[in-house]
């Protein structure tokens, strides 16, 4: 199978910061808002280089989302940033009315998503954000897998007209996609061709899916790995074409199985081509404090969990 090389572990939020640095130079209408988390969102350079386009809102996320919506009136492209919990759950109604229903060109960019923010614990580990955001009509939902892809996605959404939720994280993870690659919203990426099982992964779980595919190959199982960086709109065609071949699927995400990628895939398959599916996702639970690796192990979100899920789904096939 095709091998991927990790060019060095780095956090996806730094990919966001790098993308913002470039947008600062190339897109004069891009503005950034942040609710007292400038360093955590890697926006220090943007704030320093473009102080007139950086808006420190203080710890007041509701006002931040409303202001971002208002700034689109006059042609600005606001990137409203915080931790994923405070950028979605805390401000759901502001996003719903002032951004989504009003169809404003706001980019909600959220770091520290999922379990892997680690020691801060469940108050900060949102596992429901993809569901919250994908349910909003007109909202595009993107969850890139590494530094390079997060940087590319950050830049790509500036040229997409309409509200976007961009989700990334805190831990250092393998960086393996192409540097300065093109990011096409809604276009899933085939990473590995296979014939026995389809593994659909998003975000931090994509690297684990690749590792799982290698392990499975050693046991004679041919896994197809697809990077679903865009949860909405879902690349129906890519998924259905793969399922036609493999006849079973494992979905992998750092999110609750309720409301996440797996549920979107289930809906698609139920309507078009029902096959057995296993979910590598959290099971309707909150997280807790721990290191990212400990948490991913305890909640079943790592390479081992994916291999196990593949074996389970293959047994049913």
């Amino acid at each position, binding site marked *: 199978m095709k091998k991927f090389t990790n060019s060095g572990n780095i956090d996806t939020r730094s990919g966001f910061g790098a993308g913002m640095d470039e947008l600062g130079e190339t897109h004069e209408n891009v503005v950034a808002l942040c609710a007292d988390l400038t360093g955590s969102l890697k926006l220090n350079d943007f704030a320093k280089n473009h102080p007139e386009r950086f808006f420190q809102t203080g710890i007041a996320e509701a006002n931040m989302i409303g202001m971002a919506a208002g*700034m689109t009136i*006059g042609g600005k492209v606001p990137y409203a940033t915080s931790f994923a919990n405070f950028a979605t759950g805390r401000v759901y109604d502001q996003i719903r009315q002032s951004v989504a229903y009003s169809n404003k060109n706001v980019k909600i960019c959220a770091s520290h998503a999922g379990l892997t923010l680690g020691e801060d614990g469940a108050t900060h580990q949102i596992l429901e954000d993809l569901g919250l955001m994908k349910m909003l009509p007109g909202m595009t939902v993107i969850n890139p897998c590494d530094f390079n892809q997060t940087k590319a996605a950050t830049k790509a959404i500036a040229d997409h007209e309409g509200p976007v939720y961009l989700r990334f994280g805190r831990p250092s993870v393998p960086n393996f996609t192409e540097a300065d690659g093109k990011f096409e919203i809604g276009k899933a990426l085939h990473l590995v061709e296979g014939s026995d099982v389809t593994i659909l992964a998003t975000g931090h779980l994509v690297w684990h899916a690749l590792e799982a595919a290698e392990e499975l190959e050693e046991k004679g199982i041919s896994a197809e790995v697809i990077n679903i960086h865009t949860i909405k709109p879902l690349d129906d065609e890519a998924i259905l074409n793969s399922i036609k071949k493999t006849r079973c699927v494992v979905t992998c995400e750092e999110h609750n199985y309720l409301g996440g990628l797996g549920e979107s895939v289930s809906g698609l398959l139920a309507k078009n081509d029902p096959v057995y599916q296993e979910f590598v996702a959290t099971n309707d639970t909150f997280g807790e404090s721990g290191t990212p690796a400990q948490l991913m192990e305890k909640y079943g979100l790592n390479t081992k969990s994916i291999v196990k899920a593949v074996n389970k789904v293959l047994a049913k096939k």
Partner: protein
Amino acid sequence: MPNTKQLEDFVSQVRRDIVRQVHGVSSGHPGGSLGCAEFFVALYQEVMKRKEGFDMDGKDEDLFFLSNGHISPVFYSVLARSGYFPVEELKTFRKIDSRLQGHPTTHEGLPGIRIASGSLGQGMSVALGAAQAKTLNGDDNLVYSLHGDGELQEGQNWEAILYAAGNKIDNLISTIDLNGQQIDGSTDDVLNMGSVRAKFEAFGWDVLDIEKGNDIEAIVAGLNEAKSRTGKGKPVCILLHTIMGHGVDFMMDGHAWHGKAPNDEQLEKALAQNPETLGDY
């Protein structure tokens, strides 16, 4: 510029539009709409700098945001009669397939509306964003917003009020409709807010009162005074003292007509008190 008589005639027609819209669908919010009729007419017919037609960005003109979206009947009437969309369309208010939704929205593309409102407490943040975009664009026109007094109970307002003063946003004039009423009763009974003036001043705003909030001349004078206070390093707040239901005697004095539609007989009474001046839709 229209004279006072012309503005008052305009208000009379707007009041008719309000009660007729709400009666036509047996739902909606006439009380707050009537109380703000003079304010809307003063703003759109006299005070705001407006371009011909409508574009979402609103560059090189003043902007207005309605935060307490439930008073949509007055907003729709004044927008229609200021040329944003056909007056005839008022008859579709709150009906299926209409651009005139129960609460204002951009979703159906109604000209004159720049943000959805209805879920309370969000409009000041939006106005602040638009005001800062104007500054970035080198556009020295103003942003106006209107809020209910009960609406100030929503916490997001205070985030916005804090931000506006802390960042010296001085191209924004936010008006509070101080009618002292909300759905469950008087604002004093539901959640007493104490002195709204003292609160805004404590947050660092420049505050002025329009004591006669249903007197068109007083409103025009107050809005012009507010304009003269912009550009001085502070956001400006107008406390507009209005009477809910003003202009229809049986709808005044209390909160009963916050969200209730008149029946046929009540409609006739209301219309008899407000002569047709610009032609009913």
